[in-house]
């Protein structure tokens, strides 16, 4: 080793020490205090009278999606809850999702293998991101961080992010994103603290993107073809939409694709793993998505082992490849780039590129089990 290399080594050690020290200080995040909550009611608004030309409105309360006590997020008439069978990991945030369509209008299901939907103009998708203070009581006090809207007008979807105030009385439209310190007590009773990152408006399209056109992700037949609880009782979501007049030409649930819930431990391992990859990765990692450059396609429908990453070398992964050769090395989860990038939180190596600053341990365990089961 030359003196020069020695100096580099020392530099690395020193830098490492300096960084580990500075990381400690960044953990001392100022916490939000639940006593800041101000009890408030949603103003009474009729969704039927929404002025679409005025969208995006300044505040979330300008739309009329919800009624009653603000933080309950109780939907107004004809604002219907929905939930995908498997859901995207966003730093353990809870999500509540709703859809609204103008009265008399309906969606149709396309015949492609995912069962994508054609929505009428003026369809609105509403997605709230929140953290219960105690995950053991998911219905208890919570902090709502952001609400993302997707609105279809003149055939084009557009995304509008709203960030909630500390008083939890309303959310305001903000395009540049934000950083919010968040804490909660997890299922094991441990307090977790993170810096939650609200994406900027154009980052929405980092995921909601098919051939550079903005598209919804979770509202496809394959994600919706299962039963959830509605206020009137449990029902298959597609059937419910059809009975509400929101879905035209609906046949019966078996006629449409259906994805499993990766959390359902009784399901087949491969399908659970592919469901996880689909909802967490395949919005980019598909032929029409921004990550098509990689040739790694992670949709539920993909059958080609090479495209799924088996013995596939990276292209532009940079240090995201870690010390590994293949996206998936069958039987060796700990030597696969896929799990390395799911596990690391280093910006530039972490996958997905946006939407998380923590590791999804349960999702990682599932993918590791699956890779270890491959031969």
């Amino acid at each position, binding site marked *: 080793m030359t003196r020069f290399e020695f100096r580099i080594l020392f530099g690395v050690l020193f830098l490492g020490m300096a960084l580990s020290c500075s990381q400690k200080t960044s953990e001392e995040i100022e916490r939000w205090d639940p006593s800041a909550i101000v009890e408030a009611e949603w103003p009474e608004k009729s969704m039927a009278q929404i002025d679409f030309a005025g969208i995006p409105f300044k505040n979330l309360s300008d739309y009329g999606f919800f009624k009653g006590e603000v933080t309950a997020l109780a939907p107004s008439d004809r604002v219907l809850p929905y939930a995908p069978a498997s859901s995207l990991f966003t730093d353990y945030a809870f999500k509540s999702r709703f859809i609204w369509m103008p009265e008399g209008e309906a969606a149709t299901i396309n015949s492609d293998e995912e069962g994508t939907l054609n929505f009428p103009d003026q369809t609105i998708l509403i997605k709230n991101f929140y953290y219960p203070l105690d995950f053991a009581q998911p219905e208890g006090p919570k902090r709502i961080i952001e609400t993302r809207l997707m609105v279809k007008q003149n055939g084009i979807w557009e995304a509008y992010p709203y960030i909630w105030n500390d008083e939890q009385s309303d959310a305001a439209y903000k*395009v*540049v*994103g934000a950083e919010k310190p968040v804490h909660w007590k997890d299922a094991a009773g441990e307090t977790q603290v993170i810096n939650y990152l609200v994406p900027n408006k154009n980052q929405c399209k980092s995921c909601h993107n098919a051939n550079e056109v903005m598209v919804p992700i979770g509202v496809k037949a394959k994600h919706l073809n299962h039963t959830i609880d509605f206020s009137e009782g449990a029902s298959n979501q597609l059937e419910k939409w059809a009975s509400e007049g929101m879905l035209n030409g609906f046949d019966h649930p078996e006629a449409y694709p259906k994805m499993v819930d990766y959390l359902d431990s009784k399901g087949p391992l491969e399908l659970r793993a592919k469901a996880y990859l689909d909802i967490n990765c395949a919005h980019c990692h598909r032929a029409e998505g921004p990550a098509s450059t990689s040739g790694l396609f992670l949709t539920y429908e993909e059958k080609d082992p090479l495209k799924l990453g088996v013995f596939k*070398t990276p292209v532009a992964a*940079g240090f995201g490849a870690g010390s590994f*050769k293949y996206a998936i090395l069958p039987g060796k989860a700990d030597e696969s780039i896929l799990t390395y990038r799911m596990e690391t939180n280093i910006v*530039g190596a972490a996958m997905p590129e946006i939407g998380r600053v923590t590791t999804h341990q349960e999702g990682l365990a599932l993918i590791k089990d699956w890779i270890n089961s491959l031969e």
Partner: protein
Amino acid sequence: MKTRNLLQISLLIFPLVYLFFSCSSSTTEMTFDSSKLRKASQEEVEKVVEAFILAEDGDVIEVPEGFYSFKTQLILDNKSNIQIKGQGMDKTVLSFRELKTGGEGVKLVGNEILIQDLSIEDAPGDGVKSQHVDGMTFRRINVTWTNGDKSKNGTYAIYPVQCKNVLIDECIASHSKDAGIYVGQSENIIVKNSLAFGNVAGIEIENSDNAEVYGNTARDNAGGILVFNLPGLPKSDGKGTKIYDNDIITNNHVNFATPLGEDPNGNTVTMIPPGSGIVLLAAKDVEVYNNRIHKNKTVGIAIANYHVTGFPMDAPNWSPFTSNIYVHNNDFKRTWRFPDLTKEFGQLISVYNAHGKGKTQDIIYDGFFDQSLAENILSNPMSICIDEADMEKLNFTLFDLWEGEENIKASKDYNPFVCQTEVFTDVSHLTQK
């Protein structure tokens, strides 16, 4: 090819030489010091973010002089005829050191986009990425990383991918952990009058059609200029690249794509031996001429097939072979420095070349060829043409690696490859920009 035996042999033969000569250099040279610039206020920073988000077709986004530190990505979403202009590389600096999420600092999507006269620093992933752009111009932008520890640097500095009609002019790209200027899966490309230094690879054209790379300086990278075709990509096999009038000098930088002492990973660039001038890998239709290829300690021009990577080669619409190559009228100067022994490919060249152990090579050809076309390589089945003056004075090695590491053969005989061939490119429509 397996490393172990080769490594053992080479380490046994050259323990002392290795210690004294093979250590590659490293550089953290900066073009200017951005810390002296005025720091833009939070409002000014948010104004730039908003200008990108709210941009309409035809907008000119002017970024005044100053140092702008962003916590979020700058993304231009599918807009046309957009100009993004700073006040000069050393006047307007967009820093992404504080970025906490996102794959690149600046992302550009749309048509007819120009970015010029600014610097981009310290993006965690890629510096500036443009995707699905028809008409992408990068002019006088400087993209770099300022970390003293280069292992923390990002992947690509200037990164157009899946684009058409790309012009990269008078740019500087430095210290990236992969390629400084990387054009991938694109067509109709000019990279000219630019400087790439301190990167693992200086300039790389990958899975792309119809590219001309001229008037550039690629110096002090591990590899100067690369033309690759990788398997399994949506744009499978690229062809048609001309590399001319470039200075490709002292590309002897340590390959820092993986940590010191760690084996290459699945990224092909991690295999590039320090001291490589030009590397062609599974490349199709490439002409290399009028370049000054000086003092690259391992090899001036390496003509290689994908076989040398040892990776699976089964992919649709793609060939692992390099074919139709025309190398002529280049100026070679070797160096006394000892060629690379840190990479498998470097060991092959250093130890097994036909001119003597430890001799820098001007041109090597790994000798793999499509055996369905010919029985042996002497009929030049892949049309590899080398037409250099004073050929007998150049260190040329033809390898035969078919029998693996147990029986590596090397020959000085360049005669089968003295020929001329034609490579077609046409990027004249881009020169008016």
